[in-house]
């Protein structure tokens, strides 16, 4: 793949521009990491440095002492894992039907996928809050998981639809000519081909639930049930005066799982999201 010839000075300009982007995109994150390893003395200094003179793990220790981070991470893990698994299990068959059949139901479902992306959450969370309250599911992870499942369904359908369309119809037709029934074809021919897409979708659903804040903030009121993003905000303190070191340390830790997963599935996510967003 050759690019149209660019002049030498044009090339240099491109590298300078790229460097500017990298500075803008990377430096806040590097600053977070740097702050997480700084001892209090350096944090109080009026001339902060990029690389801590005297790096320490005290901030991490202090973060775990100040807030129930482990329990919060456990809650986040349970909520995100359950939501991702349930969402993918129920979304895959529907995504298949929507992608393969053009009828009123799949048109309505596609419409819902688009519209549900656009509604202000406040319009959904008030009724959900009232419903969950009547079911005594406020302040429980099960209530939150229910909300996360439905909340992650639109993009799960969206991504999975893209993967279904990538499976050639001819393969299914061949199986059906060989005498396999519709369901047999689905299970033995289509499902294995969809597996990588299903895994990618589940991981993406996991990350979005792991990162989610608004629903968790509204639905979880006690430290026993709160998820990691909600507990992180406790570090900010009532007046917004924060203990910078532990705050940075806890925030950095909370990012690692999603960064790792994202690094693994980055290409699949972007591919799946795009076919869903642009085509269909």
């Amino acid at each position, binding site marked *: 793949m050759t690019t149209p010839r660019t002049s030498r000075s044009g090339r240099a300009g491109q590298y300078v*521009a790229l460097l500017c982007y990298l500075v803008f995109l990377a430096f806040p994150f590097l600053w977070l990491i740097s702050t997480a390893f700084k001892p209090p003395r350096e944090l109080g200094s009026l001339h902060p440095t990029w690389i801590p003179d005297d790096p320490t793990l005290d901030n991490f220790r202090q973060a775990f002492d100040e807030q129930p981070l482990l329990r919060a991470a456990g809650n986040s893990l349970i909520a995100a894992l359950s939501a991702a698994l349930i969402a993918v299990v129920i979304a895959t068959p529907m995504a298949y039907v929507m992608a393969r059949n053009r009828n009123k139901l799949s048109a309505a479902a596609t419409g819902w996928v688009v519209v549900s992306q656009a509604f202000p959450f406040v319009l959904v969370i008030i009724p959900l809050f009232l419903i969950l309250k009547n079911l005594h599911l406020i302040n429980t992870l099960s209530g939150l998981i229910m909300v996360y499942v439905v909340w992650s369904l639109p993009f799960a359908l969206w991504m999975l639809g893209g993967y279904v369309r990538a499976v050639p119809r001819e393969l299914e037709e061949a199986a059906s000519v060989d005498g396999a029934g519709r369901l047999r074809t689905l299970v033995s021919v289509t499902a294995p081909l969809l597996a990588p897409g299903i895994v990618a979708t589940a991981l993406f659903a996991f990350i979005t639930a792991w990162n989610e804040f608004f629903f968790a903030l509204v639905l979880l009121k006690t430290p026993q049930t709160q998820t990691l993003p909600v507990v992180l*905000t406790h570090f900010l303190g009532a007046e917004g005066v924060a203990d910078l070191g532990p705050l940075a340390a806890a925030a950095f830790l909370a990012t690692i799982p999603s960064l790792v997963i994202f690094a693994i599935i980055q290409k699949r996510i972007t591919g799946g999201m795009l076919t869903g967003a642009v085509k*269909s």
Partner: protein
Amino acid sequence: MTLATATSRPGKARSEHPWSGKQPDHGVWFLVLPALIPILVLSVGPLLYGISLAFTDSQAGRTQPTEWIGTLNFQDLLHDTLFWDSFRIGLLWAIGVTLPQFLLALGLALLLNQNLRFRWLARAIAIIPWAMPEVVVGIMWRLVYNPDAGILNETIRDLGLGDGRDWLTGLATALPAVIVVGIWAGMPQTTVALLAGLQNTPHELHEAAALDGAGAWRRFRTVAWPALKPVALAITALNFIWNFNSFALVYVLTNGGPGGRTRLPMLFAYEEAFRYGQFGYAAAMGCVMVAVISVMLAFYLVGRLKGGEGQ
């Protein structure tokens, strides 16, 4: 009658999908149920319930039953200057984030589409904001903006441009400061979408245009942009909607302060609903927000339809 439809359907289906003649497609309708039921019960239902709440005096912890009050909430909203302030701020924020972000992302996508060295590194780094929890993004930028220990003011001091300032609590600087964070946080999605749009244009077209002696700008305008336009329209409309509805980032950065200068509509509605317990009133706010969003949604759908034709 039933018999007639049963015999006529497969024939019709066969003409659309060759293989489904033997096994009609509606034979798998039950596969939809596991997802359809939760969608109806926990999404469509609550949405309609939410809209209906806007016409009631529903409040948190009230003992007497909720009553219908017609359009009273909306009449109150009309005179609620705080709400319209937040609405105005929401529009400023949504436009202030969406447009610069689009231009920046377009530039980055064009760069990443070139054969540059370190492109892989740039791609990897450009994706980081996408993977980070919004709460962490907010916390991270508070560290950057921190008046004493933050890197921004330190850089300003190093460059001899003054002492810097308290960005997030200054009346004039708070909104621009959170807008910069919004731009940063949404860069990956926009860049990836535009990059995919660029990669949809056949490379030969670029080369042919280059051989014809077209400069970079003309190549962009005549070759890349026509293919990119539907994607650009769709992602811009979606970004506007997401930004207008955003909550976590600004909640963590400023919680709406100073003096309401960054109080987005969602923050305002959240406070009404879950601090003051005014469920009906907050639902009415949600309805008004939907009106704005519907306009952008129309843009998005038009972009999507045009995109579909182009494929």
